[in-house]
Structures are given as C-alpha cells and as structure tokens.
C-alpha cells in the first residue's frame, strides 16, 4: 500500500471515530450545529491534502479538532467580510458574540464532561420528533451523510434533509440546552437516549432486505455510540445493559443468513459462526451492569440473549430460565410483544400445547393481530404439534403481513414443506 492510500484509509476510519467528538466540541464552543459540521468536514478535507505529503500527525484526533476550529474561524471571518461587502450597517454578525474570545481553553473540557455526551442528550431531547432524534444522532455523532441515513431508513433524501434542518432550527430557536440533564430528569432523558440507540441498532439488525452493508454499518454505529454512553456513564446499569444486549445479538449476525442471503432461524444456525469475543464481552458487561443492582428491561433482554448465546446446541438452551426472564420483563415493561416471546419460551420449556394456549389467549390483541411474528410463532407451534392445515393458514396470514423479501422467502418455504406432507 502506498503512503498516500494509507493516509486515505486512515482518514476514512478516523472520520467515523473522531468526527463526532470534533463536532461535539465545536458545537459547545460555537453554539452552531451547521458551522461545527462544516468546519469538521473542512478539517477532514484538509487532512486528505496534507497527510499524504507531510505524514500523519502524532495525535490525529487533536489535529482534526484544532484544524476544524481554525476552519470555523475562517468561515466566520468570510461571513463577516460578506456582511461588510453587502453593507449591512450597524449590527455586527451574531456569530461574533457567540464565538469571540471563547477559543483557547474552552476547546478543552472544563468540567470533565465529554462533549459527545452533551451532544447525544441534545440530539435525543424529547422536544424533538423521534425520527429527528435518530437522524440528528447519526448525522452529528455518527458522521453519517444525509444520503446514507436516508438510504438506511428508506426515506427520500429531501425528506431527511428537511427533518435535520427543522431539528437544528428548533434546537437553536427554542433554546434546547447543550448539556447533560440534571439528576432530577436524568432517568427519563437517559431512557430517551437509549431508546434512540436501540432503534438504530434494530434498524440495522432486522433482516429487512435492501442494502446489507448500510444495515451492518447502522448496527456498528449503534454499538459504537452505546459504548460511548456506557463508558461515560459507568454508574448507569441500563446504559451498560443496552451495550451488552447489542453485542450479544450482533454476535449472531453471521449465522443469521445462509449462503443465498436467506433467513436462518436460531435453532438452525451454525453456532460456530457466532462471534465468541463479542459474546464474552457482552456477558462481562451484563455481569457488571447486574452488580449495580438496578435491573431494567435492557439488562433482562441481554440476559435472555446471553442464555441463547451460551447454549452450545439448540437443545441445550435453558428455556425455563428464559421463560422466567420474560416473566420478569413482562412485570417491569409489559407489552403484547413481550407476552408473545414469553409464550414461545413457555412452549419450549413446558410443551408446545401450553405455549399455543398462551398464544391463543393473546388472539384478541389488536397490535399482535397485525404483527407477522405472532402468526408465524403460532404457525410454528401448530407445525410442531403436527396440525399442518392450521399451520399453513397461520403461515399464510404471516406471509400476507410481511413485506421483507428474506422473511417472505422463509415463510413460503415453510408453507411448501407442509403442503408436501401427506395428511395422516
């Protein structure tokens, strides 16, 4: 590899890792999201010019932040000249009052709080629409481009760009603060942050067809951001629990699809393809979270994932313990979907007919009626009980509710298998 292409690769990698940090610091100092983002982009463009010639600096991250700061000053000066040229008399640019004299020591942390933590709480402020929280977090902290985010969430680029503009305008005009919330509102605000990260992870993890690479990147980004929050808030068990949950699920990613990209169910997966290092780290994190003595939904879900991950063969899965954990989850965070998962775990632990009775008891739930996994879970239990005709009917309902091609393929195969079987 040539010196130049090595520098190129380093810049690409650094951008993902360091742009969020630089943007976060510049927003604090400048009080301006757009200016901060543009200045950081300037700095990375400059790195691409300078590093291949002069070599990579000793501390590339600090170089980026300093260069971005200088780029911001240049932009402010240019903006001022423009104002002078257009002869806007009297008033100086508003930028001057927010940026003048606040450089220098303010670039470094003064209160020991990482700027990225401030930024993530601002991006996930409940006064912003949920989809704007997600987009803003990925854009500012993740350094994803607007087209990348639009592609990942299957929304038109224009829509996403407008969403970002509106959110940034609201942060500025409505006075959304740039800080880690005070202790009296911290629990609910941290919940919002974790919810956004979990949503990003799920969007990347769900087997939805489309750009697999973008999806993998989304999950990776969610893990990276969850790691930052967990590292910066080591006393928050749910933050650690969420990171553990993500790692314990992501560890199975390679096993979830077959050679043709088809969906492979948990029990049919080649467990040698699971990422043991990720599982080990997830379990360690979960232990650390649980030791803090405040279990919450993420920790319980991580514990369930850890039980699946630690079973060497599907038959070795501790379904009784999993069913008990779902009961616990249902108690602290009740939802029809939790009841659905609980019924499946009970079916595996106590018998398919017991689980099926639980599922049938949920039949009246409106949310589940339109939820394909309810019908496919029912179909699966009917299939295992040998009630093929009913299973086919339930699989057909699930198929009608599913848009994802990978999952449709799976359901179609199941129906075909059952249709081929002779009635007994």
């Amino acid at each position, binding site marked *: 590899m040539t010196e130049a292409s090595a520098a190129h690769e380093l810049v690409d990698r650094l951008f993902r890792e360091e742009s969020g940090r630089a943007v976060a610091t510049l927003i604090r100092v400048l009080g301006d999201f757009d200016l901060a983002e543009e200045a950081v982009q300037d700095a990375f463009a400059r790195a691409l010019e300078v590093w291949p010639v002069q070599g990579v600096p000793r501390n590339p991250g600090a170089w980026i932040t300093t260069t971005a700061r200088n780029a911001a000053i240049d932009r402010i000066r240019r903006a001022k000249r423009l104002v002078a040229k257009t002869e806007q008399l009297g*008033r100086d640019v508003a930028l001057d009052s927010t940026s003048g004299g606040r450089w220098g020591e303010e670039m470094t942390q003064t209160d020991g709080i990482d700027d990225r933590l401030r930024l993530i709480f601002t991006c996930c*402020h409940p*006064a912003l629409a949920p989809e704007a929280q997600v987009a803003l977090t990925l854009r500012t902290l993740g350094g994803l481009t607007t087209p990348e985010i639009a592609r990942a969430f299957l929304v038109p680029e224009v829509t996403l760009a407008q969403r970002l503009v509106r959110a940034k305008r609201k942060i500025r*005009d*409505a*006075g*959304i*603060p740039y800080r880690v*919330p005070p202790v009296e*509102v911290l629990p609910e605000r941290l919940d919002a942050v974790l919810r956004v990260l979990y949503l990003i992870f799920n969007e990347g993890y769900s087997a939805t067809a489309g750009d697999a690479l973008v999806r993998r990147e989304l999950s990776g980004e969610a893990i990276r951001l969850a790691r930052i929050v967990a590292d910066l808030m080591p006393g928050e068990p749910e933050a650690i629990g969420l990171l553990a949950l993500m790692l314990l699920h992501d560890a199975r990613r390679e096993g979830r699809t077959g050679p043709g990209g088809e969906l492979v169910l948990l029990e049919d997966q080649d467990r040698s393809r699971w990422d043991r290092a990720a599982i080990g780290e997830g379990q360690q994190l979960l232990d650390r979270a649980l030791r803090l003595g405040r279990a919450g939904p993420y920790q319980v879900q991580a514990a369930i994932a850890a039980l699946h991950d630690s079973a060497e063969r599907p038959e070795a899965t501790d379904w009784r313990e999993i069913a008990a954990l779902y009961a616990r989850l249902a108690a602290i965070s009740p939802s029809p979907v939790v009841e659905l998962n609980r019924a499946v775990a009970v079916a595996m632990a106590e018998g398919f007919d017991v689980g099926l009775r639980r599922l049938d008891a949920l039949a009246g739930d409106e949310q589940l009626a339109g939820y394909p996994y309810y019908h496919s879970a029912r179909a699966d239990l009917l299939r295992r009980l040998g009630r093929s005709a009913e299973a086919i009917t339930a699989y057909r309902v699930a198929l009608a509710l599913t848009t994802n091609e990978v999952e449709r393929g799976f359901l179609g195969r199941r129906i075909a298998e059952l249709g081929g079987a002779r009635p007994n």
Partner: protein
Amino acid sequence: MRYLVLIYDEETANPSPAPPDPEQWAKTMGEYNEYTALLRLRGAYEAGEALQPVTTATTIRIRDGLAMTTDGPFAETKEALGGFYLIEARDLDEALELGAACPGAKYGSIEVRPIQELPSA
C-alpha cells in the same frame, strides 16, 4: 429566553359552557394563584391572563380591503386557548419544567413556544 406558555382546555372550547361550580372554581383559582406566585418567586413571571370562553370570540379577516367579521373562532377544535403566561427561562428545559407546573397541564394541554425576539427598531 422568553417563552409563551399557552393553556388549552376543553371547557374553553365548549360552545355551551356550563356555569362553573363555585367550589371547583375557587379551587382552580387557588391553584393558579399559587402557580403565579411560584413564577414570581423564580423570577420567571412577565405576564399572565385568563381568557373568556371561545363563545365570546370574534374573528376578523381583511381580504381585498374588506373586513369580514364572524362570530366565534374559525375552526371547531376540541381544545381552545384559555389563557397564557409570558415567562423568562434559561432554556427550553426550564421553560418546560415551569410549563409542566401550570395547573392547566392536568386538565388540558400546555404549549410552550419561544418568543421570536426581533431587533428593536
């Protein structure tokens, strides 16, 4: 920053409001007096008023130089503006905290809007 705390409720929107129950009325007034006192204590109070029900409203529009005056509000809504406070707050978090403390939050809904500060002429 300054924010307008807008208080919306169903009773204000009611086309035939029932005469207020004196006991309930006194209780509500007491709550609002306490709230106003809280805002003053925090140095947040700038102004605040209650409005007469929406049945007393008149809407005016001028189109092509002609004034059109109609009875009531333009659109029928479930909740209508029943009163407001103008407050001073450090940021949106403080404004939302003060907004949530408004008695109307328990009956109707509170909208918190930043004031657009225009340069004085």
